[in-house]
C-alpha cells in the first residue's frame, strides 16, 4: 500500500513522463459549497523555491492540502513526480510521547534510514535537542513547531516540501535555521512550496505565486470574480 505518488485521484499518469517536478493544470477545489481555487495552473521544477502569498482565505492552505492529497479536487489535475513532505497547521506530533520518538516514528513510517545521529542533527538544526526528550504536551507552540520542522532535515533530497505558515510561532533564530534549510534543500535539487505571510526565504525567492482569492461568493453573477492572480 505504497501511496506516496500515485494514489491521488486526479493525478494523470500521462503527464508524469514530461518533466520532474510539480505540475498543476486548471485546478479547481471546492470546500463545502464554496469554490476556493478556480482554474489555477502552475508549474514548479526541481531546485525552485516558491512562496505563496495572498490574503486569508485566498486558498493557500487549500492548495497545499490538495497537493498533499488531503482534499478532493473538483476539476483539473495535480501531477507530482517526487516525494512530498507536508508540514501543516497541525504539527503531527503526539503529546504523549517525546519529540525524538515522534521524529523517529515519522522517519520509520516513511522508510527513511535515519540513524540516531541523523535525528540528533535534525533536532540540533532547530536547536531542539534540549527539549526533545520531554513529552510534547509540555512544550510551547513554537517548540512543537521546531520539532515538526526538524522533519524537513530528514526529507529525501529530491522531495517537495509543502510548508503551511512554517514560521508561525517561531523565534528569530529558528526562522533563520528554516531559511537556511529551505535554501540548502533547493540547492540540493529539491523543491519548496510555502504559504507564508512573513518574509521567510525572501532573500532567495526566485518565484512567487499570488492567490488573490475568489470573490464570487459575495457578488454572485459577477463573472470577473472567478479569476486568480497570476504567476510571476
Amino acid at each position, binding site marked *: 500500500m*505504497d501511496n506516496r505518488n500515485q494514489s491521488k485521484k486526479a493525478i494523470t499518469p500521462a503527464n508524469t513522463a514530461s518533466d520532474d517536478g510539480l505540475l498543476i493544470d486548471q485546478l479547481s477545489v471546492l470546500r463545502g459549497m464554496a469554490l476556493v481555487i478556480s482554474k489555477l495552473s502552475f508549474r514548479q521544477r526541481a531546485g525552485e523555491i516558491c512562496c505563496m502569498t495572498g490574503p486569508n482565505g485566498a486558498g493557500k492552505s487549500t492548495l497545499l492540502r490538495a497537493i498533499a492529497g*488531503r482534499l478532493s479536487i473538483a476539476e483539473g489535475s495535480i501531477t507530482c513526480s517526487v516525494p512530498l513532505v507536508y508540514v501543516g497547521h497541525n504539527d503531527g506530533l503526539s503529546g504523549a510521547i517525546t519529540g525524538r520518538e515522534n521524529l523517529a516514528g*515519522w522517519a520509520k513510517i516513511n522508510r527513511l534510514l535515519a540513524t540516531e545521529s541523523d535525528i540528533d542533527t535534525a533536532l540540533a538544526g532547530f536547536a531542539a535537542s534540549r527539549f526533545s526528550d520531554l513529552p510534547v504536551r509540555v512544550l510551547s507552540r513554537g517548540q512543537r513547531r521546531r520539532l515538526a520542522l526538524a522533519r524537513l532535515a530528514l526529507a529525501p533530497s529530491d522531495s517537495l516540501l509543502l510548508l503551511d505558515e512554517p514560521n508561525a510561532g517561531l523565534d528569530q533564530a529558528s526562522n533563520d535555521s528554516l531559511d537556511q534549510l529551505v535554501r540548502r534543500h533547493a540547492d540540493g535539487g529539491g523543491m519548496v512550496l510555502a504559504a507564508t505571510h512573513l518574509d521567510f526565504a525572501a532573500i532567495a525567492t526566485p518565484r512567487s505565486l499570488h492567490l488573490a482569492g475568489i470573490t464570487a461568493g459575495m457578488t454572485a453573477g459577477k463573472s470577473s470574480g472567478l479569476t486568480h492572480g497570476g504567476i510571476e
Partner: protein
Amino acid sequence: MSPFLAQVERDLMIAWQNRQDLGVMLIFFVIIIALFPLAIGANSAVLDPLGVPAIWIAALLAILAGFDRLFAQDVRDGWLDQVSLSRLGLGWYALAKAISHWLTAGLPLLIMTPLMAIMLNIPTIQWPPLLIALLIGSMGLTLLGVIGAALAEGSRRGGALMALLILPLAVPLLIFGTLASQSADGIISPHLMLLGAVFAVLLALAPLVAASALEIGETETGL
C-alpha cells in the same frame, strides 16, 4: 523496521503513557460483571447459566467503549496527514491501530477473564472454550470497532453514532461466541468455526473499509 511495525510501536508507546485508561477499562469490565449477580439476586439456579453471557456482554461493552478516540487524536494532531503521505498507507495504518488496540484492551481483558470466571462460579471445564472463543471474539470486536471509529471520524458526532453503527454488527460475534463458549463437544465446536469465519471476514474487510472511510472523511469534510 517496517512502517507497519513502526506505527504499532508508536501506538504502544502512546498507550503506555496513557496507561491509566487501561485501568479504567478493566474496572469497567469488572463492574459490569459484578452488576449481574447484584441485579438478579443470590439464586444460583438462575445465575449459573448467566455467567458466560455476562462475561461476553461486559467484554463487548468494555472493548467498544474505548473506540471513540481511536483515530480522533491522530486527526487532531495532524498525524493522519503524515500517514497518508507516508509509505505506510491507510489500510496498514488501520490494521496497525487494530493490533495495538487489541494488545492494550483485548488482551488485558482476556487475562482478567479467569478471575471473573471464578467470581461467576463457571466450572473450570468451561474455561478453555470460553477463553478461545473470547480470544477470537475480542479480535473480531476490535476490527469492528476500527471500522466504526473510521466511519465516525468523518462525522462530527463520533461516539454516539459509532455505537449505533457497530452494536448490530457485533451480534453475529456475540451469538457464535457465547455458543462456542458453552459448547459441550470440546473446544473446537462448529460455533467456534463460525466465529472464526466472521473474524476472518472482518480481518480482510476492516482495513480496506477503514482506509476508504478515513480517506473520504478527510477529503470531503476538509479538516
